[in-house]
C-alpha cells in the first residue's frame, strides 16, 4: 500500500484532480479507512507496484513549450504539400473552428437524451440534409470514420443483402481505401476483383460487364474522381449493369466535386461513400476525417445502414424536434446482429463540414470547385511547358498524374530543399500532384520553377 500513499502525498494539488485535498473526508463517507480498501478485490499478483515513465507533471507553460518544440521538429513548408491521394489541403475558415470549439458541442457525447441536445441533433440533421442535397440521395448517416471504413461498411452491407462474396473495384481505386476494405472484410471472406482502366484513365465498361456475368457479385464500386484524379465520364452503365445482375452499386465520391459533377443519386447508385475531409477539415496528419455514407430511399438498404441517423419528429408539445432514429440497427440493442459495431463516430467533423458548406452555399461551392480546377489546370499546363507530361488523358479535378523525364526522387528532393513538398510518388518517374485553392499562383509558379531547375 505504502507506495500508493507516497504518490498521493507527493501530488497534493493538480488542476485536473479536484479531490486530492478531499480524500480523507471522502473515504470517511465511504466508510473505509484507506484507499487500499477500495482495491481489496484486486489480487496481489496483478497489483501494479511500479511507476510510469511519463515524467513529472508539467505546467501548462511547459506543455505548450513542449508542443512548440515538437511543432518545430516538423518542417516548415512554404505552402501546403502538393499531396492528395485521399486527403487534400484546404483553407479552413475561422468560423468553422469557432463553432466546433463551442463547449456545448465539443464536450458533449452522442445525444442519447434528445430533449437536452436539440441543438446538436438539429446540426446533425442538417449535416445529413446538406449531404443528401449534394449526393441527391435521401438517407445519410451522421458519419463513419473515413472513406476506407465507409467503403468497408458498404461492402459488408452488400454481403448481408446478397450473401455473395465477390466485389468489383476499379484498379484506379485509392489503394489505401482498398487496403482498409481488405482488412475489414477479411472475416467475411470477401474476394476483391479489380477492373482495369483505359488510356484516358476511365473505368473499362467491357471488363466490368464481363465480371458481372457470373451473377456472383455482391457489389460494384466506382470512385469519382478516381485515384489518378481522373473524372469518370460515364457511370450510368455501372448502376444499370449492377441492377441487372443483382449487385449493389456503390459510388465513392469526393463530395467537394459535387458542386460541378453529377451526384451518385442522379446515376441511380444504391450506396454512396466518401470522405468529408475536403469540406472544412484540417489535414491533421490524416485523421480525424469523416466517413460519408448514404443510400437511396429503399428500406432494404436503409435498414442495413451502419451508424447513427438523426430524424425529425415532434415533441409532446407538437414542436419540431430531432432524435436518433432506427436505433434497432445498432450494437447496443442488436449486439451481434447489429449492422455495424460503430459507436463513437466523427460527429464534430460532420459539424465542421456542415458549417463549411453553409458558409459556401450553392454558389460558393461551385465557385470553389471552378477555382480549384483553374488552379490545377494551370499547374498541369505549366508542368507541360517544362516537359512534364500527363500520362492519362482524362479530365481531372484537383489531382493529376504527371510523368517526369527523370527520376521523381530527384525532383522531390530538390523541392524539399526549397521547402516545397511535391506530389505522391506512384512509380519511378510518376507522381500524383494535388492543387487546390490553398496553393496560390505565386507558390505554384515557384514550385514549377524549382522542378524546372531540377531537370
Amino acid at each position, binding site marked *: 500500500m505504502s507506495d500508493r500513499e507516497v504518490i498521493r502525498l507527493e501530488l497534493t494539488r493538480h488542476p485536473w484532480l479536484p479531490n486530492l485535498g478531499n480524500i480523507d473526508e471522502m473515504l470517511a463517507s465511504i466508510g473505509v479507512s484507506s484507499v487500499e*480498501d477500495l*482495491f481489496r478485490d484486486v489480487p496481489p499478483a496483478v497489483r501494479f507496484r511500479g511507476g510510469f515513465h511519463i515524467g513529472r507533471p508539467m505546467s501548462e507553460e511547459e506543455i505548450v513549450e513542449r508542443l512548440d518544440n515538437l511543432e518545430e521538429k*516538423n518542417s516548415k513548408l512554404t505552402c501546403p504539400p502538393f499531396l492528395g491521394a485521399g486527403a487534400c489541403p484546404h483553407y479552413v475558415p475561422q468560423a468553422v473552428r469557432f463553432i466546433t470549439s463551442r463547449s456545448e458541442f465539443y464536450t458533449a457525447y452522442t445525444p442519447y437524451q434528445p430533449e437536452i441536445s436539440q441543438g446538436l441533433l438539429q446540426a446533425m440533421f442538417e449535416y445529413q440534409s446538406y449531404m443528401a442535397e449534394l449526393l441527391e440521395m435521401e438517407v445519410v448517416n451522421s458519419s463513419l470514420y473515413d472513406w476506407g471504413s465507409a467503403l468497408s461498411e458498404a461492402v459488408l452491407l452488400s454481403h448481408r443483402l446478397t450473401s455473395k462474396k465477390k466485389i468489383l473495384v476499379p484498379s484506379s481505386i485509392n489503394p489505401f481505401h482498398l487496403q482498409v476494405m481488405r482488412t475489414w472484410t477479411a472475416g467475411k471472406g470477401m474476394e476483391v476483383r479489380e477492373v482495369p482502366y483505359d488510356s484516358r484513365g476511365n473505368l473499362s465498361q467491357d471488363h466490368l460487364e464481363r465480371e458481372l456475368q457470373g451473377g456472383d457479385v455482391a457489389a460494384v464500386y466506382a470512385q469519382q474522381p478516381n485515384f489518378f484524379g481522373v473524372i469518370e465520364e460515364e457511370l450510368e452503365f455501372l448502376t444499370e449493369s449492377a441492377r441487372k445482375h443483382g449487385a449493389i452499386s456503390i459510388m465513392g465520391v469526393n463530395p467537394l466535386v459535387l458542386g460541378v459533377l453529377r451526384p451518385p443519386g442522379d446515376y441511380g447508385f444504391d450506396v454512396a461513400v466518401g470522405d468529408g475531409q475536403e469540406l472544412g477539415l484540417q489535414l491533421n496528419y490524416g485523421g480525424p476525417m469523416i466517413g460519408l455514407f448514404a443510400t437511396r430511399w429503399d428500406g432494404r438498404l436503409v435498414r442495413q445502414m451502419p451508424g447513427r441517423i438523426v430524424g425529425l419528429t415532434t415533441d409532446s408539445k407538437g*414542436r419540431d424536434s430531432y432524435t436518433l432514429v432506427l436505433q434497432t440497427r445498432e450494437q447496443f440493442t442488436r449486439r451481434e446482429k447489429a449492422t455495424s459495431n460503430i459507436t*463513437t463516430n466523427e460527429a464534430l467533423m460532420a459539424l465542421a463540414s456542415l458549417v463549411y458548406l453553409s458558409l459556401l452555399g450553392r454558389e*460558393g461551392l461551385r465557385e470553389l470547385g471552378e477555382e480549384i480546377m483553374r488552379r490545377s489546370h494551370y499547374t498541369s499546363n505549366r508542368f507541360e511547358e517544362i516537359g512534364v507530361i500527363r500520362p492519362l488523358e482524362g479530365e481531372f479535378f484537383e489531382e493529376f498524374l504527371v510523368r517526369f523525364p527523370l527520376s521523381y526522387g530527384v525532383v522531390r528532393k530538390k523541392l524539399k530543399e526549397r521547402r516545397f513538398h511535391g506530389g505522391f510518388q506512384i512509380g519511378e518517374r510518376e507522381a500524383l500532384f494535388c492543387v487546390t485553392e490553398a496553393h496560390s499562383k505565386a507558390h505554384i509558379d515557384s514550385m514549377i520553377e524549382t522542378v524546372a531547375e531540377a531537370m
Partner: protein
Amino acid sequence: MWGQASWDEPLLFDYKGKRRVGILIPKEELNAQTHLPEKARRKGGPDLPELSELEVVRHFLRLSQMSYGVDLGMVPLGSCTMKYNPKVQEVSSKVTEELHPLQDEDTVQGALEMLYQMQSWLAEITGMDQCSLQVPAGSAGELAGVLMTRKYHEDRDHHRTEMLVADSAHGTNPASAAMAGFKVIYVRTDPEGLVDLRLLKEVVGSDTAGFMLTNPSTLGLFEENIEEIASTIHSVDGILYYDGANLNGIVGIARPGDMGFDVVHLNLHKTFAVPHGGGGPGAGAVCAKGKMVDYLPGPLVGQVDGKYSWSIMPKRSIGRIATFHGNVGNVVRSYTYLLGLGSEGTAMLGVMSTIATNYLISKLRGVRGLELPYSSRPRKHEVVYTVSPALKEVGLTAEDVAKALLDRGFYAPTIYFPPIVPEALMIEVTETESKESIDQFAVALREVMEEAYSNINSVKESPKRTAASRLDYVKANHPSTFTPSYRVKKMREEGKLSPLR
C-alpha cells in the same frame, strides 16, 4: 431554477437570403481552360441555402446553447468516462494540423516523435509490449483485436469459430466479433456480478477463438478471478481480449498485461481525455503482448538514432484498419493530457476515479426505490443501480429518472445498460468532478426518487426545463413519417415519396 436556453431556430434550409456568401473564395487571375466532360457535369447545382457569415455563426451559436457538454455540467454517462478535457489540449493541434499523412518522414519528425512516445506510454500503462494508434475509436480497436485473433488462429490452422463474450459486455463486443465472422457465445454473470467461472470452463473448448472481457466490468466490478480466467482461456490457446474502454478505474493500480490479457484496445476519448465531440471523433489504440504483437495493424512508429519513421511493420499484420494513421489530431490531445498529469498524476487516475464512484455510492445510501446490485463489492470507475423497486411500487422507469435529472440541470446516466440489470442507471462521475459536484448530483437523484414516491405524474411529465419535451418515437421511426433529411421532408411534402419499404 435551471432552464436550458431555447431558440426557435429554423433549419438552414428555411433561410431565404439571396446572393449571399459566408466566405470569399480567393481568385487568382489565371489563364487556364477547364473542360468538364459533358456527361459528368452536374446540371443545376445542389440546392444549398446562401448565408452570410453572421447568419451561419448565429445559427450554430443558438444551436450550441441547446446542447449540453461536460464544460456545462456533469455528464454521468456510465461507460463513457466523460471527464473534463483540459483547455490546453486545444493547443496541441499545432503539432499535426497542417501535416499531410503522406509527407516524407523527415518532414514530420515532431508528429512521429509524439506518436512514438504515445505508443510507449500506453504500452507501459497497459503492461503490453506494443501499441498501434491507427484505430480511430474503440470499436475499430475491437475489430482490429478480433481480426488479429482470427489471423492468429488461421496461422496455426486452428478452426476457431466461437468468440466468448461476457453477458455484461458492451454491445460493440459481440458486434465486432460478428463482423469478423465469429459466432458469439455469451458467458453469464454469476450472483456476485462476476464472470461465472464454472460456466466459462464449460463453454471453453476447441472452438474457442478467444474471450472478450472488460475488467473492471461494465458493472464497475473488478474480476478477482482474472488469473484463473486467463489460464482457462490460454489452456486452449485462446486469446484473452481486454476491452479497455474502462481502464480509468484501475490506471496505476493494475495492468491488463499483468492480468494475462493478450490484446487490449483503449479509447483515448475516455481515460485519456480526448473530448467526445458530440459523438466523436475519438481516438483509439490497440495494444498486444507477446505472440500477438505480430498481428497488430501497421505500420508503427519506430526510432533509430533519434530519427523516427514508420519502420515497424508487424510481421503478420492484419493490415490497414484506417485510411491513414488513425485520429492523430486527437492522439496529440491525449499526449498533452499525459504531459500535464505526468507519471504521478497518471498513477492517481484509478485511485481518484474509484474514490469518486464509491463516494457517490455513500451519498446515495438509503434512497428509496434505488437499489445497488452486488452491493457488497467496491466499485471502480462506475456503478450500476436499478430502480426496479420504484418501478414495481410507483411505476417509475429508468427513463423517467433520466428525464427528471435533466430538469435539475444534469445530464442523465446511461440507462438500460448493461442489459443484465433491469431498469439500470449506469453512473460514472470520473475523477474530474469535484466532491461538491458529486454531492449535488446525489441530492438531485435523491430528490427525483422522492418526487417519484410523492408525485409520480410530475416526474412522468419531465423534462420541462429543456428545449424540447419528450419526443414522439413512433413518428420518428415509422416508415411513412421517417424523415432523416430535409430532402425527404420536401419530397414527401411534394408527394414525391412513398413510405420507406
